[in-house]
């Protein structure tokens, strides 16, 4: 990054200060008055500094600290005690840790595909040409505007308790009644539904992707006798694959980090019976209610590793199914 900037800056400097040959610029910079290019670079860093400082102090620094803490026993009160890999070995013998990993995996591997499918389906509907399509687009995106908020989780909880909307609908259709909130088998479907309902962000990206697909391709396929399913599978999906890949990555990583909605719906317990004990939630319990920061840090790094590995696998497999425009195979 910085090399390119300097290169470009130097060229620009050389262009405007005609007398100075480009090669002499770096040599002069040290002693004499600063050259235009160095000033530019400095200004660049100055403008960048809020983000650089933020990154170093608020992200990189704490991450390094937590990497160290992961190998210690730290209760927030006393200085950390180095314990080697004890935290990691305890982790894999902890039944609640395994439970939280299982809960999270289920949420990610079921929730993400369902959410993406829903987002794509809605994007396809909103891509068709209709009167008032703009209004529909705004309406379908609306849930995502308020999506991350605490209030939605509270409303969601209210919908799924005894005599809530979900319960009434079940009774109307003659299905067995009862709220979902208190039933450990039904809380996961409820959490996944909440995620699916917040399809707005990937939907908008899908919609943008769909608009990029040249109409001629679809028309040509139709002329060749391809039906809607065939056109979707052979034209739309391959053309959309970079966008699909992008959404898949972001949603997968985001799903691993689910916290606030689970926290609110379960009343801060991860219950009932640990059925909403998501990974980050258990991490929070260990760190902030049991004061075991070392253990929590170890959990954080296991999560980073797992998400990193899954991301790497997705990138690997993407070669087989993601087609970029201009890609000749």
């Amino acid at each position, binding site marked *: 990054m910085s090399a390119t900037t300097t290169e470009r800056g130097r060229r620009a400097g050389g262009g405007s200060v005609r007398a100075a040959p480009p090669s002499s610029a770096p040599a002069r910079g040290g002693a004499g008055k600063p050259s235009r290019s160095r000033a530019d670079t400095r200004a660049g860093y100055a403008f960048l500094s809020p983000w650089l400082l933020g990154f170093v102090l*608020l*992200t990189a620094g*704490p*991450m390094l*600290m*937590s990497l160290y*803490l992961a190998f210690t026993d730290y*209760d*927030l*009160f*006393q*200085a*950390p005690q180095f314990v080697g890999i004890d935290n990691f070995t305890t982790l894999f013998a902890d*039944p609640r840790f395994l439970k939280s990993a299982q809960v999270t995996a289920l949420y990610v591997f079921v929730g993400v595909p369902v959410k993406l499918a829903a987002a794509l389906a809605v994007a396809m509907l909103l891509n068709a040409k209709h009167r008032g399509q703009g209004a529909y687009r705004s309406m379908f995106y609306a849930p995502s505007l308020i999506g991350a908020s605490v209030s939605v989780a509270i409303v969601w909880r209210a919908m799924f*308790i*005894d005599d809530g909307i979900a319960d009434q609908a079940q009774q109307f259709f003659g299905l067995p009644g*009862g*709220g979902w*909130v*208190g*039933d*450990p088998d039904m809380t996961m479907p409820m959490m996944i539904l909440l995620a699916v309902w917040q399809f707005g962000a990937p939907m908008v990206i899908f919609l943008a992707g769909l608009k990029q697909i040249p109409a001629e391709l679809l028309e040509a396929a139709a002329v060749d006798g391809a039906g809607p399913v065939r056109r979707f599978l052979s034209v739309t999906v391959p053309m959309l694959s*970079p966008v699909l*890949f*992008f959404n898949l*990555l*972001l949603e997968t*990583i*985001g799903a691993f980090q689910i916290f606030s909605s689970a926290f609110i719906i379960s*009343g*801060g*317990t991860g*219950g*009932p*019976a*640990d059925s909403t004990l998501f990974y980050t939630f258990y991490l929070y319990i260990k*760190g*902030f*209610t*049991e*004061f075991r*920061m070392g253990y929590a*840090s170890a959990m*954080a790094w296991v*999560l*980073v590793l797992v*998400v*990193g590995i899954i*991301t790497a696998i997705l*990138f690997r497999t993407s070669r087989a199914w993601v087609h*970029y*425009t*201009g*890609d*000749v195979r």
Partner: protein
Amino acid sequence: MVRTRTTTRKAAVHATAIAAASALALSACGGGGTAASADAAPVATDRDIELSLVWWGDDDRASRYQEAVTLFEEKYPNIDVQTQFQAWDDYWTARSTEAAGQTLPDVFQMDLAYIHQYASNNRLLDLSTQVGVNLETGEYDETLLGSGSVDGGQYGIPTSTNTLGMIHHDDLLEELGVEAPEAGLTWDEYDAWIREVSAAGADHDPQVYGGTDYTGTLWLFIQWLLQQGKDAFAEDGSPAFEKADLVAWVERSQPMRDDGVFYPVERAKQVEPLTGLQVNEATTELTWDNMMAGYAASAGTDNVGLLPVPTGAEGSQQFWKPSMLLSSSATTEEPDAAAKLIDFLVNDPEVGKIFGTSKGVPAVPAQKDAMEVAEGSVDDTIVSYEEEVAERVTAETPIPVEGYGVVEAEFKRLGEELSYGNITAEEFADQWFQSAGSNLGGE
């Protein structure tokens, strides 16, 4: 052509990779250091002082505190008190992060479950130097005051006392046509009574139950242990009972769960943070007596009563517990003013009047006597209950052990798993002892 292809591909891959990396960013916390304390001097009146006061509780408590603080500020015009409050769980999360950063409030509510941990890590001010200077403790019962001392230092001042009791909802019982429970029930008799009520309430809409599963409440288990002449914790903070005791406690109520006569856990989870009694679906609950005021308010009736907890073979063996204490940060810049505020909150008769029994029965007689207790009111019931129970109080308050808060939460969680039928009594005991092993003191 080839060049274009790779560039496009790379650019797209890079963009995606950067987005992925930024989505991955995580954060963590750090901190550490030491604390110091100063000599006590009468609180200054010639300069402006700012104090922070933090408590856990609901809106009702907040307005009472606000009233008390206004009085304090009138009396000490140079002191400005900034207040803040949270619900119990969030309260401790906030305090633990502050403890790590050495920024605990000047005065804050403390609980027996945490005082040991905070005090032994030098996070609290030793108030014993303030006694007789800014803080009067002469009116205190020795044992009660002792509950705020850790390793010889006075780290917390109890504001009030409470004791376990059985709240019964007489409106519901009358509706069902069942007699209220009698005083002096044994645990088995209580269980039988619950069965009777749950049978009578089966056709009621909504269905009414006799009581809530009490097995997952650590304090009740401790009460049950004491009734058998056993202690809960040893001097070193480790459990003083055997795994077999815990198994016996869980198994004794198992038939009740098997027959579905307790208030169902599925329903209990949904009405949280309220309880079955508060939503008029359960007729009794075993809990702290000072909870009664809040319970009666949510249930929308004053027709509630208090009885002692069920007794065991060795008699009732009730114990007092300070319902809460007030502590000050070891790093406070105003130890004198902080001590003065604590003094005011625990001793001033007007404050006693403001809080009533909402924090428990006031520890200091001057405050207790100042309460305007109306005949037959909830306050009256609680005060007369504690007076009556005073004769039964034979057990010492169990020692507050370090890590109690964590193992108490684990006890509750296991109780929930038990209610869902996910674990056996043996598994309950094994998992709890595992948690106790890594969170409590000893060996």
